[in-house]
């Protein structure tokens, strides 16, 4: 199988579109016969990253590469960056606003969930520049 490359825009403040990219990747992985538990891991980690980009960073882009043995998902934004990554990785820590919390987000579990479901998680962030979250899920 050759590498499948997918690219998505993540529009700002658009929660409807935010789910679209992850569900599209989920469907794609199912189509090519990836195991259900691996698909779930990739889809949830990606959805959390997308939602973060929507909530915190005025949207961004998602670059997805599906290879024979793995999927690599890069969510890139030009948002404010994360000043204290260690603190942001703490379960329960959140800077989300009240209206985001009312939607059921902002529990401080987005990054911890990405860590939980990704086999490999890389976060490059710089204050004032943006954040790149790279999620890798291995199929075998």
């Amino acid at each position, binding site marked *: 199988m050759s590498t499948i490359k997918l690219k998505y825009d993540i529009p700002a403040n658009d*929660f*409807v579109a*935010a*789910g679209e990219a*992850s*569900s599209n990747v*989920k469907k794609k992985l199912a189509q090519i016969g990836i195991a*259900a538990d691996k698909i*779930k891991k990739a*889809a*949830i980690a990606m*959805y*959390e990253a997308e*939602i973060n980009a929507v909530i915190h960073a005025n949207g961004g882009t998602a670059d997805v590469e599906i290879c024979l043995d793995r999927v690599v998902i890069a969510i890139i934004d030009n948002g404010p960056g994360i000043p204290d990554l260690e603190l942001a990785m703490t379960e329960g820590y959140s800077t989300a606003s009240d209206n985001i919390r009312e*939607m*059921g*987000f902002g*529990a401080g*579990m*987005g990054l*911890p*969930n990405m860590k*939980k479901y990704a086999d490999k998680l890389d976060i490059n962030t710089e204050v004032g520049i943006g954040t790149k979250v790279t999620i890798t899920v291995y199929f075998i």
Partner: protein
Amino acid sequence: MYIKELMQIISGELLTNKIPDLSVKVQNVYICDLLSWVMSHAQKGDAWITVLTNVNVPAVALMTEVACVIIPEAIKAEELTLKKANENGIIIIGTQLNSFEISRRIIDSKLLS
């Protein structure tokens, strides 16, 4: 238990258009209103009870592969939410009952596998 059995037990009303797959079984119940928490803990085949009705609910249901979503206490679901659920084959059931009463009836039915 099958979705139709569940609906009968909890006096539920199907809010989405149809049950895409009649063979889908509910294996357990999960109750939570924090979406990331749900994504971390809900299991495939759960009936997920939540008071949330926004458009993220069908997205989370899709990711977690829950069997269906139950909206308790006659809370009205948003149109956009139902539209997105229909597009993705997510089942949303509404009921007058609260979360505890839904759970009690499901347990009393002894139909959970």
